């Protein structure tokens, strides 16, 4: 298990070593390619992305100041919001305009900024719910436990394995509402894995998580890549971004203003401007 881990990280970093840090640059093996994605709310253009590609098997961070359009971009890609114009592909297949549940079935699963644990379901049921192709999910077949009991046992085993990995196994029979904020983030991530996704989209996975749990969450995100998944995440915590991401995309005012490896982006003048320079004197205004 350990040898391939470093392997995946090296592979991801090697892939990025060959390309230059220019906004919209083509990647060697893109899983997502988006073109001219635009979303307007009245007069406000929330997202206006000309071209962006996400490298397969890497951890890509999407950063930017508040209101940069990161979450809106997430909502668009996953089908939770509708674009004014633009299209994007997943594995070469066009998925723009696809409803959210079909996007998820194609292998792109997201989490939410405000965690969506299903409160009055047990932790284990939260997990089992997410499994794909359940026979008992049909009304008629649901009436005959004999049809789905065996599959349910397999799903339960898979869920328990994941819960053990995410250290939630002791809580499996508790209601999800009884978990702490950080544990809910863990549950949401573990639940997403029950779908067997190819790409996991994490919207602010660290928000409201205490420092001790943060370390464990970081480890889990790295594990996702090392298990062969692609990770795209929105985050404000720069230390975390530097620590785990292979590539960083910076958004400001709906556009992609910079791309690059974590170190090169942190030193980029456009990024410093976007985060601090151009707006630092307006922060009181924005915070209101």
């Amino acid at each position, binding site marked *: 298990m350990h040898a391939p881990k470093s392997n995946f990280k090296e592979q991801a970093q090697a892939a990025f070593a060959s390309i230059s840090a220019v906004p919209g640059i083509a990647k060697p093996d893109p899983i997502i390619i988006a073109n001219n994605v635009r979303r307007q709310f009245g007069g406000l253009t929330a997202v206006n992305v000309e071209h962006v590609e996400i490298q397969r098997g890497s951890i890509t961070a999407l950063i930017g100041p508040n209101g940069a359009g990161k979450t809106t971009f997430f909502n668009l890609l996953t089908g939770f919001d509708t674009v004014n114009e633009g299209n994007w592909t997943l594995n070469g297949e066009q998925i723009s305009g696809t409803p959210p549940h079909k996007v998820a079935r194609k292998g792109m699963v997201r989490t939410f900024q405000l965690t969506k644990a299903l409160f009055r379901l047990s932790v284990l049921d939260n997990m089992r*719910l997410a499994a794909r192709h359940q026979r008992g999910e049909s009304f008629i077949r649901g009436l005959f436990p004999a049809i789905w009991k065996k599959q349910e046992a397999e799903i339960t085993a898979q869920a328990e394995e994941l819960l053990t990995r995410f250290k939630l196994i002791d809580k499996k029979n508790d*209601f999800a509402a009884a978990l702490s904020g950080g544990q809910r983030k863990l549950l949401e991530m573990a639940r997403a894995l029950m779908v067997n996704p190819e790409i996991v989209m994490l919207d602010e996975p660290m928000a409201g998580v205490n420092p001790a749990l943060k370390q464990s969450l970081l480890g889990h995100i790295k594990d996702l890549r090392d298990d062969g998944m692609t990770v795209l995440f929105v985050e404000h915590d720069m230390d975390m971004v530097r620590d785990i991401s292979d590539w960083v995309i910076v958004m400001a005012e709906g556009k992609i203003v910079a791309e690059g490896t974590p170190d090169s982006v942190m030193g980029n003048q456009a990024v410093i401007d976007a985060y601090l320079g151009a707006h630092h004197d307006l922060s009181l205004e924005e915070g209101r």
Partner: protein
Amino acid sequence: MDFLFITQQSLSAAIGVNTIIFALAAIGLNMHFGYTGLLNFGQAGFLAVGAYSVAVSVVSFNVSLWVALLIGIVNSIILALLLGIPTLRLRADYLAIVTIAAGEIIRQVARSATFNKTLGGSDGITGKFGKEFFDLNPFTAGLDLPFLRFTPNDLWVVVVGWALVAVILFLMWLLVNSPWGRLLKAIREDEDAVRSLGKNVYLYKIQSLIAGGVIGSIGGFVYALSRQSVQPDNYGTALTFFAYTVLILGGAARVLAPIAGAVIFWFLLVFVEQMLRQAVSAGYIPEWLIGVNQVGQIRFMLVGLGLMMLMIFRPQGIFGDRKELALDARA
């Protein structure tokens, strides 16, 4: 005061025809509201469609009763689709608005003069449309025990009715404990989370609306057959809200809750009425305070007061789990 009579009346009501009707209406609502979180305020409309389908088919179109029952089920499925398809993609409150209006539309159409010939206007339809059902009645004598009393026909309705309730509850129990039921409960908690996991939320909400609506229309069958008549004003909003009362009294999202709720509701209603009536006629309550004619209204006030106390001291209902209710306050 004749306590034996009061007990007999109250107990007969507690397991009687009305209890069965409201239990069925509430079981349907439990599927909608308790498990899926759908706010259906037009359950009376589903009962009306069930009742009228049977009466109209048999009386106006001379269809066999058994075919008429099938027509009733098909009609209630159509109603669920009509209500659900446009509204279930929208936020939950829209279904509430549409269903409460649809329930009233159905009642107003039924009582309108335009369709007097087939639907009977405000008088409804009375006739022997339940003949085929009562021909099967094996009870030649009714039940006349000191504490329980039914006519032969009522006894037959009660026996068949409770058997139906038992079958429906068993199916419901199977369903809510299946992956299908888990999906409904998940939709109740957060639709978007369920969508993000690749589930077609819309499809399941429609299925839930149909299932609960059909159960409600079976309540309508019992309503129509037991009285051998249908009257439009029996299917007003009050029916829907009493069904909600029954459900919440028992505890939403518990399979057996509607039964407990309906039994207690009807026992209390009749018990309070009989107590008051006897107390007034025996002179324990002075005429200037409550007259004999006012008892019917006063009992609803007292039962309403009792329900308020219930909500204050046991908001989770009789079968509900207080812990679960507390979780609803989103942390």
